[in-house]
């Protein structure tokens, strides 16, 4: 793996834009790659990965790993995959490369968008570097190290004070058969300045086979900023994904997260929220809906670091055939975070005896005046409910679908934006 990585790294350096090939940058990348080589892909011996042995999943699904192979033609995409009749801004990644950036609905003076592939103004990049370091502190997470070392696309968005986006932003993550690399490493940074607001939909649409997609999103919310972030992985595909979100919240800011996890062979959504400002709040609502031998995980770290902060997490899973779902939810409350209100609940329907769901709730609390709770339930569909519905004329399949739809509906109802709620219902085919 090391030899392959070295060869691919040289290819990466030769193709990077000039702004990113400074000696310092290359040196840093090499350090991160060394970290990655030392650890390799995470395996079940690492506590955070005990339910999802990524190393094993990769070795049994991917024959040979090509870490980086650049070819400009890879960024073509099928226009029919763009959402119609829904006005939105776009960032389109195709096979890990930036294909298109379009913010035509917004006021140009209120936002700054930087793409490392096209940006020549190093001063601007320097300014944004101070907001988000070019490399993410890896905290011994080998996938972050890999992303730091090999990221080729890095888009940065800076939203100025008081500016509220007129239309949502859809970040399309496409892969297709034109892909040359096995591994896709991409990065997106968002800075929402004081009292600004943005809604993002991260939409996956994969047509490649057995790709490894490693995405690092860094969000920083200023005082009173609001970020609503919806992540949709609905289309069936054989890819293996790690989607890391780090959210840093200042006073009175709000981060609403919604995860719909259904399409990929494997995906781990990791959401790290640092509630650094008083009265800041974070919400994570998620659906894991699996069949076949899919394996998905949602892992959260909600860190309450100041007083009067709030977090709420609700994860509902429906597992069929021989699929596996995992939810590891951690609430951390430090000694300053008095009056914290933290809640998490996981509910799972196991439709088949070959399914597995692992829930690991963790509460780590160092303040004494807090309200924190967690709960986890799992079970099959209620036979009496099925009998009730069938006795009215519905067949078994219809009754089952109605019950599953009903089970998941209350998570969808938590989406606070009506237009996006309708769009998502339409994409994921959940009925009211």
């Amino acid at each position, binding site marked *: 793996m090391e030899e392959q990585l070295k060869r691919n790294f040289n290819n990466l350096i030769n193709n990077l834009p000039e702004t990113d090939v400074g000696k310092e940058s290359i040196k840093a990348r090499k350090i991160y790659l060394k970290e990655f080589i030392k650890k390799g892909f995470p395996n079940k011996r690492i506590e955070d990965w005990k339910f999802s042995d990524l190393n094993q999943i990769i070795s049994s699904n991917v024959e040979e790993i090509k870490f980086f192979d650049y070819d400009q033609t890879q960024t073509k995409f099928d226009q029919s995959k763009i959402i119609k009749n829904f006005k939105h801004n776009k960032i389109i990644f195709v096979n890990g490369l930036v294909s298109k950036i379009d913010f035509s609905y917004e006021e140009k003076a209120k936002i700054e968008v930087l793409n490392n592939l096209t940006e020549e103004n190093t001063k601007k990049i320097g300014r944004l570097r101070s907001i988000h370091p070019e490399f993410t502190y890896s905290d011994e997470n080998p996938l972050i190290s890999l992303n730091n070392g090999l990221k080729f696309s890095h888009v940065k968005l800076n939203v100025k004070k008081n500016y509220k986006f007129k239309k949502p932003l859809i970040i399309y993550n496409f892969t297709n058969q034109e892909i040359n690399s096995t591994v896709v490493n991409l990065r997106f940074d968002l800075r929402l300045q004081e009292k600004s607001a943005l809604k993002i939909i991260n939409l996956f649409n994969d047509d490649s086979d057995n790709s490894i997609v490693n995405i690092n999103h860094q969000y920083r919310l200023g005082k009173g900023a609001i970020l609503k972030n919806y992540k949709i992985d609905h289309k069936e595909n054989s890819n293996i994904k790690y989607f890391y979100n780090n959210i840093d919240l200042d006073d009175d800011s709000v981060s609403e997260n919604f995860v719909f996890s259904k399409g990929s062979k494997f995906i781990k959504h990791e959401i790290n929220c640092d509630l650094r400002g008083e009265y800041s709040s974070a919400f994570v609502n998620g659906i894991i809906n699996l069949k076949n031998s899919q394996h998905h995980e949602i892992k959260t770290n909600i860190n309450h670091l100041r007083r009067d902060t709030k977090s709420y997490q609700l994860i509902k899973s429906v597992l069929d055939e021989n699929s596996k779902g995992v939810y590891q939810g951690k609430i951390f409350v430090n000694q300053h975070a008095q009056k914290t209100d933290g809640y998490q609940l996981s509910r799972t329907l196991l439709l088949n005896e070959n399914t597995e769901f692992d829930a690991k709730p963790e509460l780590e609390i160092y303040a004494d005046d807090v309200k924190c709770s967690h709960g986890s339930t799992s079970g099959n569909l209620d*036979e009496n409910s099925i*009998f009730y519905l069938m006795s009215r*004329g519905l067949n078994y399949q*219809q009754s089952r679908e109605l019950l599953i739809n009903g089970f*998941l509906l*209350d998570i969808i109802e938590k989406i606070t934006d009506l237009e996006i709620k309708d769009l998502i219902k339409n994409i994921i085919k959940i*009925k009211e």
Partner: protein
Amino acid sequence: MLKIENLKAKIDERHVLRGLNLEIKTGELHAIMGPNGSGKSTLSNVLSGKKGYEISGRITYENQNLLELGIEERAHKGIFLAFQYPLEIPGVNTNIFLKSALNAIKKSKGEKELDAIEFLKIVKEKALKLNLGEEMLSRQLNVGFSGGEKKKNEILQMSVLNPKFSILDETDSGLDIDALRIVSDGVNSLRNKKNSFLIITHYQRLLNYIKPDFVHVLINGKIIKSGGPELAIELEKKGYESFN
């Protein structure tokens, strides 16, 4: 319409029905009364096809062997059970559920399915006729409903699905006088020469509102006495003990 011959049912090695015979003709309304544990709910479950029972005997419904039909097929052929404890189904809108159910029945008969507007017209009409508020239709099925509301909802479903043979399993239990009247008025308004009813109850009280053609006493899994409405009054006076 329905003929039950020597029906025996066993669940978890326990004999619940022990050779029950009953015939209900088109247009008739029969009441079955019996103490706790006599097999009343088992009878309604077996008639509507609930799984988990070991069954012997014969049930003929409109010249077919009922026991060969699945739960939903029985519903398609006009059998309806008003549940003793209607289930709460979170996230399922009452209107949408009822429309799917009605259309499933229509489809099985080769009739045209209704669109949302046609359906709403029918359901509103029925709700008005039964003196039931429409607002329960837009709520999640039975979720947070009071006991009385759940029973009223059963009657509304019955009225919309328009069954040939309806079984009411202790529909009167837990109802106050006003709710009892609404439920009884509902049943009475649906009675006609083409459909039949089987009313299962503990108490004679309901039969003051719904006049049965026949009353049967079910004890220990068997019908031990049958008669007219006067049998219910006798039962109320003497209690089940005297029939043992």
